[in-house]
């Protein structure tokens, strides 16, 4: 049973008159990658900064690994590693010196651990160079090594793919998945790259104007949970398009829906592009396809349909609107 490593309870932060975070409550569990999504200025970074001790919350409280951040600061922060905005280090020192300085603050003396994280992020060849000579991607890698060096139970990464090359992004994704799923680390990632988040995260929380609007399972986790619970999955049934009918008349999606019995019309709905969509278990799918074929409605294909994270994001945040 996974435990809540990070608990945010009714967190509020106000800058002047503007509420950057408004009564936000959420938790991040051990062994999961939690994606934190939201438009610019939604309150993602403010929330992360409060968790990492940069900002003080106005109301509410933060608990990390069972320790209250305000009253047990040292114990709470010992559980956290992360990067906020950009990985900032001391440019006059080498990557290794930066890691040593940070490890020292955590009471770590084992140099092997530093070598281990350096290899993990693929920086072993250039770790002795001065940080001021690093590219942004290299800084991200060393920043990640720094965040991991003390084996945190909660890893917080703000835009971690910034500056990384495709190979680096792929490695990061694998690394985070491994950390979460194999080592039980709770990972909280904030990013604007929805496709990347869909591939990386197990759960996402969408925030806008300081308020948490939705928390959903995504990707394999969503599929696994839905399948595991009742076997219900979303399907898209595409009808034969008119251009493929070689001059014969084909029924429209409305006519296909009308051909179904009364009770089925509530389960099935019309989708764009001459298609029907429905969330069904395998038995129901068989029945539906039988009914459609019996009614003489030609089908082109049946797809397992999932709403993309982008659809979810825009529907929750009212996306697509002008940036005002």
């Amino acid at each position: 049973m996974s435990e809540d490593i990070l608990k945010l309870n009714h967190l509020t932060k106000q800058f002047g008159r503007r509420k950057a975070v408004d009564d936000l409550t959420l938790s991040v569990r051990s062994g999961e990658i939690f994606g934190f999504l939201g438009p610019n200025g939604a309150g993602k970074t403010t929330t992360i900064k409060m968790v990492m001790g940069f900002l003080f919350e106005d109301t509410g409280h933060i608990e990390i690994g069972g320790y209250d951040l305000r009253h047990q600061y040292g114990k709470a922060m010992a559980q956290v590693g992360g990067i906020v905005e950009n990985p900032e280090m001391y440019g006059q020192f080498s990557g290794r010196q930066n890691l040593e300085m940070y490890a020292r603050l955590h009471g770590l003396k084992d140099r092997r651990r530093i070598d281990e994280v350096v290899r993990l992020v693929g920086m072993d060849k250039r770790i002795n160079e001065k940080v001021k000579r690093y590219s942004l991607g290299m800084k991200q890698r060393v920043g990640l090594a720094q965040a991991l060096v003390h084996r945190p139970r909660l890893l917080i990464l703000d835009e971690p793919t910034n500056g990384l090359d495709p190979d680096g992004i792929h490695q990061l994704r694998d690394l985070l998945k491994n950390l979460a799923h194999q080592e039980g680390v709770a990972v909280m990632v904030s990013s604007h790259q929805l496709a990347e988040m869909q591939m990386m995260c197990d759960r996402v929380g969408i925030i806008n104007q300081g308020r948490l609007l939705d928390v959903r399972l995504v990707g394999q986790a969503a599929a696994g949970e839905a399948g595991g619970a009742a076997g219900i999955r979303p399907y898209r049934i595409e009808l034969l398009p008119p251009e493929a009918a070689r001059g014969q008349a084909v029924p429209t999606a409305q006519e296909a829906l009308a051909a179904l019995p009364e009770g089925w019309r509530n389960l099935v709905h019309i989708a764009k592009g001459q298609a029907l969509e429905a969330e069904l278990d395998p038995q129901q799918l068989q029945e539906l396809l039988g009914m459609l074929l019996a009614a003489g409605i030609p089908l082109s294909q049946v797809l397992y349909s999932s709403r993309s994270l982008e659809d979810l994001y825009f529907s929750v945040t009212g996306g697509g609107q002008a940036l005002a």
Partner: protein
Amino acid sequence: MRKYLALFKNEWMKLSHRALLIVGIVALLVVPPLVAVSMRSSVTYTDNSGSVSQTPDQSQLQELAQVHLDELAEQQSWYDPAASDVYTQLEYKANELAQTALQSLMDSRLDLAARPYIQDLLDQQARLQAALTLAQNSQAQGFSESDQLSLLNEMGGSEVAAEQTLTQLGQVLTDGSFEAYRDYLLETSGSVVSGADYQAALAEAWAMVPTEDQQAAWLYDSSAYTTLRSLTEQYAAAEVSMARGYDVLNGTEQPLRAQERQSFQDLLLELRYELKNPAASVTELAQAANNSDSVAKQLNLIILCIGILIAAGSFVSQEMETGSIKSLIISPTRRYKIYLAKLGALLLISLALAVFSWLVRLISLRIVFGPLSGLTQVIAHNGSLHVWNYWQYTALDAGLGYLTLAVIVFFALAVSTVTRRTAVAVGLTLGSYFGLMVTESVLANFGWKEAFRFLPLMNLDFSTRLLSDASRLMTLKQFGSTPQVNISVGFSALYVLILAGLLLWMGLDSFCRRDI
């Protein structure tokens, strides 16, 4: 404690990797030897052994006499020989006669011509002769009554008096010995402070001075000669002040208070020691070494202050600007510990630099000027005499200078934390520092009411006050004295402690309570 050490080590690393530190170290390393070499090159008589056997050879004697001759020639060039006013004519004529007399003596008795007291006597003689000549021709020159009075004044009241003095001077010059010169000084001491008691005290002072046979330093050393005269006059004035009950030395007629009496007794103790052991400390070389170290100390203190101001003024703000502060905040360390570690690292590096500066100063002096025995510090306090080696004295001096640095660290770090902008913080701290230096000099002579109004400014630099009064601190007995007029050391120290506390609170509050 382990956490503090870890933090401290990190902060120390950050400071020690700054280019500014290298620049500072180079400056501290270069300034004292440069100043020392420069000061050393201006010393004409370099023997400070004080031994008769060290009498200069012919070429040195020639050089010593020539230096004074050149000085006279240069001074004469300041005056216009065709000028009609009596003052210019007197100076020009006296200078001309002095040169002639010195040149003549150089040709006949070079050994005497090289001695500064003889040169002084020749100058006096030339001045009297010039005054006499001008007075005798005053009708032809068309001098006014006022001009004639000036000439009479120069002659000691009358032509007869001038003739008598010239005779005396002639006898001393013919004899040429330092003892003859000393006797002449005693006879004419009435012109400094009138009274037989003063003359007796002056004789007592001179009696303490080793004779020409014992020590020869002041025979050829202009600085030693001048200092020795000054010491004997100070001694006589202090003796007379004690006897008469008022301050003859500073010319006041207020009855002496108990504390002032004690000060005079202490001064007499110091002077007795210096008069009996004058050879090394009064020489031109020792004076140059002393001046050199004083200049080097001031320059190094300025370098240290500016360096520390920049380092401390940017220590927090730079981390805020670059964002590197985040890696500190995200560590399991309370913010106040981070601030205290930064403060500690700055205080330690200031201390290390102060010690470094002190060592460079001492080594430079030793190499350029030789043994530092001439710079021994003699301090009398409450009737007891303390003789300090120069390194001990300068160690205390450096320690007190460190107090200034410590206050600067507290101040600049607080400003850096509050402003969070390096340019603003460094500008503010440097501006305050230079502002203080100017204000200090402007306010130096203010009374206590005015001084009190500007207390924050006065006391920020209070260690300079302590330095000027280091003698009192050395004995650690009289801490309630007043290094700055109307402000006691104890009060200043308390004030600085409160000030440092306030600055610490200000910095901590800003660092620990504000969002980043």
